[in-house]
């Protein structure tokens, strides 16, 4: 079975640009998560979908971050406009509802904002 696929692996953006990160969850998984990972803050939950419905939108990230799940096999995370402090690794994870917190993570997208 294919795991979680994230593209691109690396993204470099100028301040103020719009970037879109992509994620394909494990086939058949109902839950999808976006996390931001930095050395200072660790893992921060950005968004959480269950069966394509947004369950949690990560409070502090609302204004410039928007995650969408157009169908059960594809999700995007849009950052608009980007700021240098957004430089981080963005991780997507999926899980099958009822599988008890076994998250399957993608390899992440490393974003650098200049």
């Amino acid at each position, binding site marked *: 079975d294919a795991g979680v696929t994230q593209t691109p692996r690396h993204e470099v953006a100028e301040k103020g640009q719009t970037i879109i990160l992509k994620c394909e969850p494990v086939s058949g998984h109902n839950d999808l998560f976006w996390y931001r990972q930095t050395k200072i803050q660790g893992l921060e939950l950005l968004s959480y979908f269950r069966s394509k419905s947004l369950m949690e939108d990560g409070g502090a990230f609302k204004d410039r971050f928007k995650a969408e799940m157009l169908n059960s096999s594809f999700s995007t995370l849009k950052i608009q406009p980007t700021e240098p402090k957004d430089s981080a690794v963005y991780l997507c994870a999926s899980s099958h509802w009822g599988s008890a917190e076994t998250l399957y*993570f993608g390899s992440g997208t490393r974003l650098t904002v200049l």
Partner: protein
Amino acid sequence: AQSVTQPDARVTVSEGASLQLRCKYSYFGTPYLFWYVQYPRQGLQLLLKYYPGDPVVQGVNGFEAEFSKSNSSFHLRKASVHWSDWAVYFCAVSPGTQVVGQLTFGRGTRLQVYA
């Protein structure tokens, strides 16, 4: 609110030595606890998980962890470390099953293994 503290940002051990990575949690009630590992340039992978029951749980690659309610701890152990264990280890807590969105991670402990 639940929280997880991993007091050691970095641990260095020699290959073949035993290992303990510390994890302290804060949660009112009975928590569900997890250890995840992140190898270089990869996402996180589940090592092991604890559900209420036997306090010692076995994971992959010879790892085990022990839950202690009195100490609010869930330390990870391995009897003999291998160089391939070089990675970042994350402890996480959840209030229960079916609520995956409330999984809270610690900041991680970076394990370095030298020959």
